[in-house]
């Protein structure tokens, strides 16, 4: 969403679309100020940003499946075969 076209304050529906740009640090300084000013005055959007942050934390806890010993063994055999050829 292009904020540069907005002259007024951000509304909630716009703020939720700016969350990722905000977290990625890609908003301009001016838009960052506007975004933060909105959040200071808006409980709903403040909680929304916290929820996105919590979502990221939760996602970071999801582990891939363990490498099974037999898979690892198979890969090492593949390696030895490759070296022999």
């Amino acid at each position: 969403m292009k904020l540069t076209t907005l002259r007024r304050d951000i509304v909630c529906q716009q703020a939720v679309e700016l969350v990722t740009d905000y977290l990625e640090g890609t908003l301009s300084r001016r838009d960052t100020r506007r975004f933060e000013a909105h959040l200071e005055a808006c409980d709903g959007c403040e909680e929304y940003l916290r929820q996105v942050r919590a979502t990221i934390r939760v996602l970071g806890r999801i582990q891939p499946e363990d490498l099974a010993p037999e898979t690892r063994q198979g890969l090492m055999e593949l390696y030895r075969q490759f070296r022999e050829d």
Partner: protein
Amino acid sequence: MGEGYRSEGGLRSLRRWRPRGTGPAARHRAGRAPYAAGVSDDDLVRRLRSGDESAFAEVVDAYHSSMVRLAQTFVSSRAVAEEVTQDTWLAVLKGIGRFEGRSSLKTWIFRILSNRARSTGVREQRTTPVDVSDEAAVNRRRFDAGGAWSDPPAHWSDEVVDRFSSGPLVAQVRAAISDLPESQRAVVTLRDLDGLSSKEVCDVLQISEVNQRVLLHRGRSRIRARLEDELAKR
């Protein structure tokens, strides 16, 4: 951000293989470099080129599980994902002599994997068209005509991380990830599950920074909405 999910694994945990679930080797993440912090890829690449088997074991331990997870984004089954990952290891061994170090070794390996997984997905006719729809982060019905919340979010951000240690929520989030459109799933997996930087994700998936951000935004928004739905049920 995530507690410790970007922490370094270090060499010690990678040197020796232990049976499943008995040591730190069982918890490898792609976010970890298979060598101590501060050591560049050079040493590892040199060892791989010289045929040092332990170097290969290190990269396998560090990346294999995350590679399979990423491959599953593009192909029809776990078995096919394992196959694609195995083929990728062969391609890595064959191509390591040509590795120029323009990206990190990890990024280079993951890029080979994502290219192979994608073309396998296409052959399986599984790949869905790139998602270009206009997608709102939050359902429009939750705002009034002026764009202010009419149905604001309930407060759960403080408790969700603690509640996440319980099984059912983990299963729901896993399901939410697999329900994402392919490109969103790939970006969310690499960024938020594996802890790659935005630049690394762009390198691996060969997409622009803007595209990466859009996909990340949509993917995270969907997962948040799913968490919201789940928590409302409890």
